[in-house]
């Protein structure tokens, strides 16, 4: 691929830093902040783009695993809701980021229904809660590693490398 994605992203940063930002008037604070954020967003994209599909595929497998675990933890009607979502997302193309995202939403909507249990009318077992928390911990860690370039996470120094969590 010529020119490469990396090269074009680098060029964008250079254009903002060398041309656009210096041309912004001193009193245009919002424009200055937007230029800084643009540089930061592009830096994050450079870190992420090569792994974006793998990251989304990992998110899909994780939430699918949660749905599979919950099937055994809930009543029959709820298990049916989950099974329908599992069937609908079976065999999704793991190289298609949009298909992966749609599948994540399908599974997530079914799981949400089970968690809410008709607004508290149906119980949620301790086992189901523990499974959701275990899933949530993995999901949160992946997200924190993925977006650590934003500099917001107060514990970002302690995060593992991306390869360990993707």
């Amino acid at each position, binding site marked *: 691929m010529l020119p490469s994605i990396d090269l074009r992203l680098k060029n964008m940063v250079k254009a903002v830093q060398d041309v656009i930002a210096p041309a912004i008037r001193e*009193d*245009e*604070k*919002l*424009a*200055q*902040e*937007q230029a800084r*954020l*643009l540089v*930061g*967003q592009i830096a*994050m994209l450079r870190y992420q783009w090569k792994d974006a599909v793998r990251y989304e595929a990992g998110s899909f497998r994780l*939430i699918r695993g*949660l749905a599979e675990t919950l099937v055994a933890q809930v009543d029959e009607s709820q298990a049916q809701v989950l099974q329908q979502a599992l069937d609908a997302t079976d065999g999704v193309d793991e190289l298609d980021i949009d298909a992966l*995202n749609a599948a*994540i*939403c399908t599974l*997530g*909507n079914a*799981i*949400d229904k089970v*968690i*809410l*249990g008709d*607004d*508290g009318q149906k119980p*949620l077992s*301790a086992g189901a*809660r*523990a499974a*959701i*928390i275990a*899933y*949530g*911990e993995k*999901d*949160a*860690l*992946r*997200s*924190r590693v*993925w*977006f650590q370039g*934003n*500099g*917001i*996470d*107060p*514990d970002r120094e302690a995060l593992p490398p991306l390869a360990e969590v993707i």
Partner: protein
Amino acid sequence: MNTAGQPDPWDRTAIDPRQNVVLERTLEYRARGAYRPRTGDEIAAMLRRYFDHLGYGAPQISNVRRMSGGASKEQFAFNIVHDGAPEGERLILRMDPPEGIAQTCRGREAQLQNAMIGTLPVAPVRHVDLDAEIFDQPAAILEFVHGVTEPSNSDAKGVSGMGTRFDDWAPKLAPQFVDAFVKVHGFDWTAANLSLFAKPRPGTIDAPLWELNNWAKLWWNAVVEPVPVITLCERWLRENMPVCDKVVVVHSDLRIGNFMFEEPSGKFTAILDWELGHLGDFHEDIAWTLMRLFGNWDDKGRFLVSGLLPRDEFLEQYQRLSGNTVDPRKLHYYEVLNAYKCASMDMGQAIRAAEEHTNHQEQVLTWLGSAGGVFLEQICKLIQEDI
């Protein structure tokens, strides 16, 4: 309502009426389509129209400057000269974009801010266009207050103030920071004009229920991608609601980036951003400011609340000076609620507004949205303590 006079914690209709109007209005604004940030000339024209409507004689608007900072409102500083004030003055326009990271009411903010005059340093609110009758969007006109939210010489500056290091400034700022909580929670709101606020009953779960319903509605109206932990968190919050014994003013966002001070004295000149303020439980404010996202580490390896003082010192000073005793179970509940609020804002409303292009600085929204994992981790940890 059950026999003990407590509402059903799953009753989603139990919500502050004015806040409900704002949330419903958000859907109408969203349907109007993408928003383009206004130019200085457009803002000047809107201001002239507004001051004409208010009866200011021959208002002349100049030097309109868009302000940075904040994650939800559009703000402009401007000069105005009119027949009643030929010498002119500088004021602030604080205006809603169609959607921001949070959906709030300019009128409620103004009532609370003006009620605090004489109790705390605040920017007085002169006028409010509550439902966008004159402006294109709801807006308020505030007096200009001088000061900074982060030291001018600081190298560590972040979005919405987060990540700012105060270093040598901390000893000057920390006592005023604690004092602000004491004064907000000690304020006698019963005599103030807070007509846009519903009043929760003490000894009931009104306060946490209304608050949770507000944020849950924001989340469900915005959700772009389901997040199971956020849904589990909502269920946990409904199952564990504590009674609010004493109803106080809750600022709701009193933390790093939301106090302004003058240099070099360090004297507070304004407590900012009252938009999330409401009547509720003081634990909500304490739990909010203790959040790790709003703090940072000093060179001695201590974690500092809002970059100012260690958690234990903050709690000790607050309790001693306010006379309020912090109940660890209630504090825990509000830590969960606050993490839920942040997750709803960052992973729901912020992302939705960015997707719909209904904000003036969508880059900020997606930047903050990318911090969602921090809150999910917090929710998991906090709920696990209870399981």
